[in-house]
């Protein structure tokens, strides 16, 4: 691996959130991911960086792409993986998360990748177990690798982050993707405006350094990137907004709205998409989208994160 980041030495053994990281550390992860991205273009897509290490994938909450992405990333680094999903574990028998993780750790796991429905679960575990903890999404709190891959994709497409203006649209209140993106983007010098109705965009989110707009139309012309969050169907009927139709009319991204955007605007979506609700197929599959590149880049980011925490001591 070649290193171009000068004197910087990675020290962290956990990645629980972007909140704890400096801009320099985030940049270092992105730079490391660039190197790993190249691995995926080789005919033999495997390096021995984590040979002999065990990565425990603990998914206490459903996930498709994040889980597969981490699993593939671990395997490309030559690590062995064990997988636990809550349905097949003793979680349903009433064991605490901490006990479950301590038990799996006793089998000799070096790195845990944890997806959990409770905000702060990875933070709690990082203080109580000696293995590395990587947060693969905790409650409504953070999803650091998703934000890293989003930022990585923006950096690759637009050349840098500083001075960019990024809109994040949708259910900000319940979105860990939004939080990690706000934190990461702000640390790298981008401006962020979050867009949605007040019931989905808490006013206090401005304390994280972003702006709020309740009108998507107002921000279209001024942003370089639009990150459309999935509107979660389980929120329907919770009284947070009147109907899918009204949401789609006010906050959905369609060709008519695309016409008012900057020509080179980058359209992102963390998936899974509800086509026709927050984004139409014309936009999702159109020339400005980078949705599948996000997924591809996710692999490089996760390889970088797995590799870096395995080197960390703190």
């Amino acid at each position: 691996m070649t290193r171009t980041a000068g004197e910087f030495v990675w020290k962290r053994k956990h990645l629980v959130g972007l909140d704890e990281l400096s801009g320099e550390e985030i940049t270092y992860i992105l730079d490391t991911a660039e190197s790993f991205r190249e691995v995926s273009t080789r005919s033999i897509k495997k390096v021995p960086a984590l040979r002999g290490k065990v990565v425990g994938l603990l998914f206490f909450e459903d996930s498709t792409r994040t889980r597969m992405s981490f699993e593939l990333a671990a395997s490309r680094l030559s690590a062995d993986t064990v997988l636990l999903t809550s349905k097949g574990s003793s979680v349903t028998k009433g064991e605490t998360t901490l006990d479950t993780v301590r038990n799996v750790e006793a089998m000799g796991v070096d790195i845990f990748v944890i997806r959990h429905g409770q905000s702060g679960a990875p933070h709690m575990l990082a203080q109580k177990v000696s293995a590395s903890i990587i947060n693969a999404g905790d409650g409504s709190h953070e999803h650091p690798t998703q934000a890293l891959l989003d930022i990585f994709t923006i950096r690759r497409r637009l050349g840098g982050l500083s001075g960019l203006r990024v809109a994040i649209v949708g259910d900000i209140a319940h979105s860990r993707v939004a939080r990690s993106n706000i934190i990461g983007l702000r640390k790298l010098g981008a401006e962020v405006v979050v867009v949605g109705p007040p019931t989905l965009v808490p006013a206090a989110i401005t304390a994280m350094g972003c702006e709020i707009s309740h009108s998507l139309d107002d921000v279209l012309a001024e942003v370089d990137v639009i990150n459309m969050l999935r509107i979660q169907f389980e929120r329907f009927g919770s009284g947070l907004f009147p109907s899918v139709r009204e949401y789609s009319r006010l906050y959905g991204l369609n060709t008519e709205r695309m016409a008012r955007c900057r020509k080179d605007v980058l359209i992102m979506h963390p998936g899974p998409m509800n086509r026709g609700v927050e984004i139409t197929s014309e936009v999702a599959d159109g020339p400005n989208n980078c949705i599948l590149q996000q997924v591809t880049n996710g692999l490089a980011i996760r390889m970088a994160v797995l590799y870096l925490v395995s080197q960390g001591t703190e």
Partner: protein
Amino acid sequence: MNDILIQNGRVIDPANGRDEIADVAIAKGKIVKAGTAAGKATEVIDAKGKIVCPGLIDIHVHCREPGHEEEETIATASASAVAGGFTTICAMPNTHPPQDNETAIQYVLQRGAEAGLARVLPIGCITKAREGAELSEMGLMLSAGAVAFSDDGDGVASTSVMYRALQYAGMLDVALMQHCQNGDLSGGAMNSGAVAVRLGLRGIASAGEELMLQRDLVLAERTGARYHVQHVSAAWSVELIRQAKARGVRVTAEATPHHLLLTDAACASFDPVYKVNPPLRSAADVEALRAGVADGTINCLATDHAPQSAEEKELEFALAPFGMISLECAVALYAKALIDTHLLDWPDLIAKMTLNPAAIIRGDGSGSLSFGADADVTIIDPKKRWTVRADKFQSKSRNCPYEGWKLKGKPVATIVGGEVKKP
């Protein structure tokens, strides 16, 4: 001959307007003299440099017995109380089964007497089984020794039930204590605000406390009953109480050490030791609460000592139970929040831990060093510096958010009914 003679202490007795270097003499379990006490005694305590005051009263303690004896018992709560300088504690009724009948009240009194440490005075439930539907037998419980009523842990949600409860309690001239929290707005894990938003935790809005308080103040005004606001946490609640008092509503209120010292910023660690109900609020709320204590809007101080097992506090933040313990460090915490900040002096502080809470639970002027009063006396070393170590607590639980704090001021002797219970 006196049984105990406490000499040369700074005797602070707010009920009698006393603050002077003096002696306190105790005989047959009663105060026989506060002033210059002549005569001999079986036991002489040198209180030079110490404060000698009426026994401290905490009207908000969860003893967890019956039901959760693994967390605390009436005996361990009593031991914790006397270690913290408290001679009287009130036992909240959200036990399992709840203290909603005469027999349950007698049980608490009996277990308190068996422990033989602090006086343990039971609070009865306002409604049967704390379900908020039917009034409990307040009259019978009062005769059995209950000193006030509360459904603490929950507020009485139904307006009509609370209205009737206040009318009924008004007849008995007993205080109804409310945990103000509008049910519709509950369900979160910490204070609503910027910290909760950043952490992705569901918030508990101050509005939930304010709304129930506002409703209750209307009902208390209409009924003329005595109404007590438990663990006030929000700035606007303080203002509502202030305004109601100005109108002559018979409302009293308490503040806890944690709401006077900690903010929701502490929750950023995701450590459930900071999870409490009502939640830790903002710095502005802390400031308003301190101001409310200073100007008398908040009558008294109470710990809301709420023991929880270590296993339960090792869960994820949103899943862990609410509650924190502070009986054994409360005096120093109050001093830190209110005396070190020059809001109160020691006589003010002691009034809020003796005379004022006594007025709420008994209304008879106890909590004094008057001639003939029960000899409940606390001796405090106001200068003693010490470090909080929860593993040294008499309490059975360890969920103390002040672990490792360096504090100033410590009770050095706790005398209940003329007997030294600590050291």
